[in-house]
């Protein structure tokens, strides 16, 4: 499968409750060294309960400018979380299911994340 197919897919927890949709995939660049960058590794998926549209990057930082855009986008994506690859039980064509007792991390790129 290609990553693009995964975006927008519904996400369920282990007892079948719908949690939201895949809004983004989070990578870390810590694989084998290459010429320019190390290989990327899929860290996990960002799940958003209300909208799978773009965050325009505002989930990663605490940026407040230019008012009121960040507040609007954060409101549209309220309740979104990052779930690690290890916590994903199954990826199907139309749904993603999480393991029991998965951890919902903040999608921010500061000390509150994984």
């Amino acid at each position, binding site marked *: 499968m290609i990553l693009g197919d995964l975006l927008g897919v519904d996400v369920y927890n282990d007892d079948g409750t719908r949690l939201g949709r895949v809004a983004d995939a989070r990578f870390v660049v810590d694989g084998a060294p290459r010429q320019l960058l190390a290989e990327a590794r899929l860290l996990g998926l960002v799940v958003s309960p209300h909208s799978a549209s*773009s965050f*325009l990057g505002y989930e990663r930082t605490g940026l407040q*400018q*230019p*008012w009121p855009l960040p507040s609007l986008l954060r409101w549209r994506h309220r309740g979104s979380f990052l779930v690690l690859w290890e916590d994903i039980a199954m990826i199907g064509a139309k749904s993603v299911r999480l393991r029991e007792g998965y951890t919902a991390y903040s999608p921010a790129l500061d000390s509150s994340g994984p």
Partner: protein
Amino acid sequence: MKRLLGVALGVLTAIGGFVDIGDLVTNAVVGSRFGLSLVWVVGVGVLGICLFANMSGRVAAASGRATFEVIRERLGPRAGLANLSASFLINLMTVTAEIGGVALALQLASSVHYLLWIPVAALAVWLVVWRVKFSSMENVTGLLGLTLIVFAVALFLLQPDWGNLAGQALAPAVPAEETVSTYWYYAIALFGAAMTPYEVFFFSSGAVEEGWSIKDLVQSRINVLVGFPLGGLLSVAIAGCAAVVLLPAGIAVTSLSQVILPVAEGAGKVGLAFVLVGVVAATFGAALETTLSSGYTLAQFFGWSWGKFRRPAQAARFHLAMIICLFIGLAVLATGVDPVLVTEYSVVFSAIALPLTYLPILIVANDPQYMGQHVNGRPVNVLAMVYLVIILAASLAAIPLMVVTGAGA
């Protein structure tokens, strides 16, 4: 002294490069139908393009990324592609209009039919894009474009009733024979002509071409903040000439010959010679910029190597894309469609597509990860948000107004 010359050259090029076929046609049409009652839109548009060019130039200098590289990074591939498609198609429309404009101007100078000039114009555009250095290309067309100042000279020589003109400009009202919706339709067209997206693609890619760094920002700010408003005054002079000569005669501009008619009346044969040089230089310069912009947008989105600072063999897809765009423009013009009509549509569609490029630049200009300490200050952000609302309103209102007014008929 050398630095001063550099600043002067930059400002002069910005003035001469401001006016293109869109400004020429739209300002003349508006002047001939609405007098100076829409002149405030030129002011709104010029302030907007100053703001937008200042932000995208700063993003390019601070992050080393041009507009479409930023759009691809920030919007992701899917939303980015939709954005690219719209921006690219409108840019292609502008390429077509500019080449048609060069051909029409050459027809006026030579009495040879414009359809015969079109292949010549396209070939010349390609040769310059292929061979000529970026800075010489900018400076020559920009400086020759300055001859359009003859519109201002002609306006003085026509000895208009200044009080009447000032009255139209300062207390705008819809003329009796026009409707409110056509007034607003042309307001959007004029706004789109002043704030054409290609200017920003070109401006930010040009900053990368010329290897700007943070310390060149002062120079670029002067170029924009002095050059564009003075270029805007040229636009007003074009509208003023039309308002003085064509409006009382009841001539609504539909061709390029009518655009320059007031100059011939006010400044005679010498004026006519100047204005022909100016129109050819302005449209040819803009044809170069739009052709390059089509290559820039595609190459930046798909990650091809791009730029005139590379040899064509090292940026093969970039150059091939521009050649294909020129052929598409040629094919469209070969159908005999009126370039003036293409221009009138292209400025409105420019206004429609503007939010697509404006919003990502505004967001990135606020992101310290790209910009370091050169993020937007608070006053710039307040102005930028006001303009976001204006740009969105113009974009959303354009299509309904186009339908209601029958494209301004």
